[in-house]
């Protein structure tokens, strides 16, 4: 029997519909659902407010008060509990009525337990990053790499890649690799691109940043 040409055309059209439905489905899974599944969300042990402590606040601390350099040139990074206790010494006289301050005393200061901060910018083991070379010698602003932390009222959610265990701030939030701000991603190529842009290409030699 001869195939009905009408029937054949319909079959072809159906084929295309299924193809596109499948393609769109695959794109949604690959570009939206998978990236969502890839990262698990964790919140910080304490909601620290940079704004309440910072230079503009009533406390009026300079950034360097907590994020300072040691005499050997290493960086304090996120300060230890000792730094908090310097001001938060008496659980009877709280500075605010924030539950976070109570939490600071009950969970950490009283049992003298370091706060297990989740570090957004933790680099892999093979990376050596001297803050002093960037902040002091090259006069780079903190926000160039870290974003506007100083104006944060709350700490952002910490998203960690389930496979690599690196923070999303290293990998970049945009799955297509699109980067608007310098602080959107912290991968090797971003470091290298900045070195190049600053005319410091010699710092892209492997051993400068790898250990």
């Amino acid at each position, binding site marked *: 029997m001869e195939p009905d040409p009408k029937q054949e055309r319909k079959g072809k059209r159906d084929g295309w519909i299924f193809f596109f439905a499948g393609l769109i489905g695959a794109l949604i899974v690959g570009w939206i659902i998978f990236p969502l599944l890839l990262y698990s969300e964790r919140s910080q042990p304490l909601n620290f407010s940079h704004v309440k402590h910072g230079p503009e606040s009533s406390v009026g601390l300079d950034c360097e008060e907590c994020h300072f*350099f*040691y*005499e*050997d*040139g*290493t960086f304090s990074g996120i300060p230890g509990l000792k730094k908090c206790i310097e001001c938060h010494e008496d659980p009877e006289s709280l500075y605010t009525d924030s539950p976070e301050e109570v939490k600071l005393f009950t969970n950490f200061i009283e049992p003298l337990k370091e706060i297990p901060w989740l570090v957004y910018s933790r680099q*892999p*083991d*093979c990376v*050596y990053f*001297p803050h*002093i*070379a960037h902040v*002091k*010698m090259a006069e780079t602003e903190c926000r160039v790499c870290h974003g506007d932390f100083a104006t944060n009222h709350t700490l952002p959610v910490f998203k960690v890649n389930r496979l690599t265990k690196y923070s999303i701030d290293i990998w970049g939030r945009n799955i297509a690799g699109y980067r608007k701000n310098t602080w959107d991603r912290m991968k090797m190529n971003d470091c290298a691109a900045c070195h190049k842009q600053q005319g410091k290409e*010699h710092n892209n*030699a*492997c*051993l*400068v940043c*790898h*250990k």
Partner: protein
Amino acid sequence: MKKRDSAKGARYGMVIDLDRCTGCGTCTIACAAENNVSVLYDESDKTRNINWLKIYMLTNGKAFPHTEVVYLPRPCMQCGNPPCVPVCPATATTNDSDDGIVSQIYTRCIGCRYCMAACPYHARDFNWFDPAFPKGMDRYLSPEVSPRMRGVVEKCSFCHHRLMSAKSKAYFEGRRDLREDEYIPACVEACPTQAITFGDLNNPKHRVSELIKNPSAFRLLERLGTEPKVYYLTTKDWMRRMADNYLQGESKKEGNRPEKKNG
């Protein structure tokens, strides 16, 4: 890949006085401890164990009482013209930094071991096993040096992390230049007879620059043109002759003298 200009920047090198070396092995231990070198289930398996700084025992082959022994510590020579670099298909080892130290990036290495075949000094070791440390020793690991995984090659880095630490400290004090004693590798620091001198070969004020002018200074396999930055000193002529692959009857005056070449 960019080739570095050896006259620019620093060119760190070492001078090892073989007449002073007693072969005690302190440098190799200091090196392994400093650089988180893992410990094998059986360290006597010399085909598998890892040694960034190996000590060779050389004798003049004569019967007693004319026997003479020289102990020769051998780190990576940080060649100015390193044969290991161009063979690497992964660009995991390069000679592009401003300090003349040949890099080895473990996370980039694919473990093909071409570099091991190319290195004429056997300065490279392969990780046959996952890194392991005897119980309790893991507490002494240094956070300054990244651990290596199974399947990659490692080698001496002249304790490059110490250079970085020294630089950070200098930056804190607002300096960019390092003093001679600010950066020295662990082996140099540990040597009880102070047989090893370390410094910048490009800096005429550093002691190494003076020492390499010594007529008894030489480098290993100099005729290969690898331009090693590790120099040796010895007064023993037979040792000098061992340092290069001379043919029988070839004059010892030929070659094997430090040339005024940069590398």
